[in-house]
């Protein structure tokens, strides 16, 4: 079952640490290797049936009530990627067994991450449910993070890991938003259902935002410009990881996503332009930058970026076909780009995988990947050299390697574009072949650099950390297999096309399946006669050779791009600026000064409440129904006001306490006027006890000083204070004018019948609302305990032994 296939790497991952610890003598990789091989073989058996148009769906309920289920969906598209994941996975693990020393490396971790990644990647390509897809999507980012940071003691590893994580997870979150928009629009999380229902929603306001957000996810994952900057830094990972994640599989997840969503969004101008343009820019920018790299892995990283751009642009171009009515057979020809994209996806995985392994071998055997130190390895490492030639030439698009085929088809696709006359393509369409051609020239150049600067020229053993020699045979098996495939696919492309690519295409362009003659053009052949494509290739080679030869002359071009303004620098500086500015900003208002905090709080209250009052007109005052004020009430009120107002001007702390006490006593008097004897009693006692507490504590506090503050601040405080007071008064007056309902309290006048008490207040406290009273007791208890603890428990250094155990 497919779901189990997805989960199995995770399960094995759980026991890997145990295997690693218990069987120290065997390289853990051997156990791990079983997983992808078994999975690969399991998947291979689906090829015939999928090729005949079958799809497989397995559903395991996860959160059925929310419509989130673990639904595995196998069709032509997912099968291509799944085979890559398990196939390349097997080869990479085999390679890693020789690459990573079991003595020096913590293989337990390594293989856990790798298996986690493998499972996650399978999850991505098999998931039908958007949320589950997202789950696995982020898991790939996380495992990638861990693998990049595998040598976490290196600064650069940590840097690269964080960068990739930040960028891909951010993109992922954007994608999630897009997914949720889709699901909200169509009320389903199932991709199949979305594809089935999308027709009615293309005009929905959320359609384009959802599309762009999904693309954000895809572009970040697939290292498309300008998000590509993480990929070169991801090269800090061990080379098997680079070969696997950062060229063959993970970065293809974005490609997969775009392909998967082509039936949803394809046919829209925005999709066409964004996908194809971003792809073209990436294609160019990657190839252009790859040329100047001196680190072999960095060169490969930029090359990967460039190739991913190529595939992306193909997907964009192909999507234009969906603009046409599906029954229009002629339109199918434009969809060749989709076919090409999938074809190149596979091809790229083979030759780039091989190249990474080659670079890994060079690194492993010489101790460096710096082109400037390398050279003349051809004779020392003949097998590796051969592999490098195969991979590079395929990458450069030369026969007899598979890269040639897909590159030719790419040229066809870009040339076809120019014939379209919608989406304003007629105006800008010429850009496609031009950019494609220029990028191909650079691709040719860096491919040559890779081979010739490393293996030809002068050997400089003194610059190498190790004495170079050919890699052990085990390490060569995987690249040899991949290189063989590079050649096999050139000679038998239709084997691949028929059984894998075409079913994949059918999954991406389901509406074209069955349209008459749609598949005749998918017959891949190396020779089409002297057509434009071939001429372009010849031009590429010619110009490429010239540029390669003249490299020192035009190297200066790169200096035209100031270092300060590179995207990398932008990333670094914005993070740094973000952190610094955050610190500055936060420090500026989070002063730790209570006064400031209180000012913020008061101002927030004033602004918000006054704002709402002004907006709603809540204040309405009418004092005509007031009870008249008797003389003594007025007198006491006046005394109270004067007392209160004189407190801030009090000259000593004792005076202030006394005045506060007077205030409390006068309040008790008001309680008397308001017929609240219980309150009056309580207030009196509490006021006195509080005053006693004030005295007890104040003795130790410093003498009450005149507030030494700038007059400006004093005035501001006064303004705030008066405003707050006024606000309270106005609201209180409004409330008195707007008593919407009578109080429930007449009920309590039956206190005697109900609770056997004559004192209503006491009945409320002791019975009707006894719960409040009970908690109030608890409050007191806690206050008492708190005070006790506060006083008795002191920081240790002072050694006040006797105080700790009080009574």
């Amino acid at each position, binding site marked *: 079952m497919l779901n189990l296939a997805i989960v199995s790497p995770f399960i094995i991952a759980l026991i890997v640490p145990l295997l690693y610890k218990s069987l120290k003598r065997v390289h853990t990789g051997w156990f791990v290797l079983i997983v992808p091989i078994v999975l690969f073989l399991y998947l291979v058996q689906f090829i015939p049936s999928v090729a005949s148009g079958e799809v497989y769906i397995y559903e395991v309920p996860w959160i059925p009530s929310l419509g989130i289920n673990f639904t595995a969906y196998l069709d032509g598209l997912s099968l291509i990627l799944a085979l890559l994941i398990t196939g390349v996975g097997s080869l990479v693990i085999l390679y890693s067994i020789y690459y990573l020393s079991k003595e020096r490396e913590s293989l337990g971790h390594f293989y856990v991450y790798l298996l986690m990644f493998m499972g996650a990647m399978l999850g991505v390509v098999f998931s039908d449910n958007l949320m589950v897809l997202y789950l696995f999507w982020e898991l790939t980012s996380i495992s990638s993070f861990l693998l990049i940071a595998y040598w976490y003691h290196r600064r650069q590893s940590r840097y690269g890991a964080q960068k990739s994580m930040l960028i891909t997870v951010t993109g992922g979150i954007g994608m999630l938003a897009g997914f949720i928009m889709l699901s909200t629009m169509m009320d389903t999380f199932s991709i199949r259902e979305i594809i089935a229902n999308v027709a009615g929603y293309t005009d929905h306001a959320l359609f384009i935002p959802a599309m762009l957000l999904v693309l954000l996810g895809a572009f970040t994952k697939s290292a498309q410009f300008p998000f590509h900057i993480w990929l070169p830094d991801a090269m800090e990972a061990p080379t098997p990881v680079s070969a696997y994640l950062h060229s063959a599989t993970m970065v293809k997840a974005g490609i997969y996503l775009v392909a998967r969503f082509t039936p949803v969004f394809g046919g829209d101008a925005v999709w066409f332009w964004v996908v194809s343009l971003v792809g073209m820019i990436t294609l160019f920018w990657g190839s252009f930058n790859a040329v100047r790299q001196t680190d072999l892995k960095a060169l490969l990283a930029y090359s990967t970026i460039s190739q991913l751009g190529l595939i992306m642009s193909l997907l964009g171009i192909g999507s234009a076909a969906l603009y046409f009515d599906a029954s229009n057979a002629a339109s199918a020809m434009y969809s060749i780009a989709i076919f090409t994209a999938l074809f190149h996806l596979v091809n790229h995985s083979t030759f780039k995988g091989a190249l990474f392994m080659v670079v890994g071998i060079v690194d492993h055997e010489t101790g460096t990947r710096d082109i400037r130190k390398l050279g003349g390895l051809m004779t020392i490492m003949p097998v590796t050299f051969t592999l490098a030639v195969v991979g590079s030439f395929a990458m450069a698009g030369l026969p007899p390697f598979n890269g040639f085929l897909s590159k030719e088809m790419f040229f066809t696709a870009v040339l076809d574009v120019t014939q379209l006359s919608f989406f304003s393509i007629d105006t800008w369409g010429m850009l496609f072949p031009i950019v494609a051609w220029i990028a191909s020239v650079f691709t040719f150049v860096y491919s040559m650099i890779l081979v010739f600067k490393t293996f030809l020229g002068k050997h400089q053993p003194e610059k190498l950390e190790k004495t170079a020699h050919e890699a052990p045979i085990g390490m060569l098996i995987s690249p040899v297999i991949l290189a063989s495939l590079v050649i096999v696919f050139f000679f038998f492309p239709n084997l691949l096309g028929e059984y894998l690519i075409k079913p994949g295409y059918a999954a991406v362009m389901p509406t074209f399946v069955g349209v008459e003659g749609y598949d005749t053009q998918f017959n891949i052949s190396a020779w089409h006669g002297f057509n434009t494509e071939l001429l372009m290739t010849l031009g590429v080679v010619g110009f490429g050779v010239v540029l390669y030869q003249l490299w020192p002359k035009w190297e200066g071009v790169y200096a035209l791009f100031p270092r300060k303004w590179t995207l990398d620098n932008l990333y670094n500086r914005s993070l740094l600026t973000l952190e610094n500015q955050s610190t500055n900003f936060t420090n500026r208002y989070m002063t730790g000064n209570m006064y400031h905090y209180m000012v913020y709080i008061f101002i927030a209250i004033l602004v918000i409440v006054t704002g709402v009052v002004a907006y709603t007109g809540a204040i309405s005052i009418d004092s005509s129904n007031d009870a008249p004020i008797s*003389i*003594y009430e007025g007198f006491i009120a006046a005394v109270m006001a004067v007392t209160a107002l004189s407190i801030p001007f009090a000259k000593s702390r*004792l*005076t202030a306490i006394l005045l506060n006490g007077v205030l409390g006593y006068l309040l008790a*008097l008001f309680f*008397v006027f308001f017929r609240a*004897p219980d309150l*009056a*009693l309580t207030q009196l006692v509490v006021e006195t006890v509080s*005053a006693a507490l004030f005295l007890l504590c104040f003795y130790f506090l410093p003498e009450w000083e005149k507030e030494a503050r700038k007059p400006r601040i004093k005035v501001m405080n006064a303004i705030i204070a008066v405003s707050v007071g006024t606000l309270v008064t106005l609201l209180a007056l409004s409330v008195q004018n707007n008593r919407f309902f009578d109080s429930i309290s007449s009920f309590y006048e039956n206190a005697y019948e109900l609770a056997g008490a004559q004192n209503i207040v006491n009945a409320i406290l002791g019975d009707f609302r006894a719960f409040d009273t009970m908690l109030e007791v608890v409050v007191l208890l806690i206050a008492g305990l708190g005070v006790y603890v506060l006083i008795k428990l002191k920081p240790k250094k002072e050694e006040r032994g006797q105080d700790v155990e009080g009574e």
Partner: protein
Amino acid sequence: MFQVLLIIALFLFATAIGIAAFRIIKGPSMPDRVVALDAIGVNLISVAAVVSIVLNTRAFLEVILIIGILAFISTIAFSKFIERGVIIERKRDR
């Protein structure tokens, strides 16, 4: 008539309280203030008694003794505060 007399009495007490409050504000010494506070407390007792009659309730008679108790305690507290700073000693040294 009786009510009027009571109101006058209340007014007189209030005046006394007001005067004492003046002494609290003016000082000059701390004991002066305490003396005045004590006087206020004692006058409040009278007020409570008279208010009980005015409002025709016994409810506030409870207040009388309370004020007496509190006035006494607070005066002691203030005095000790002024005299020794400490109002409750851990152990009196004598």
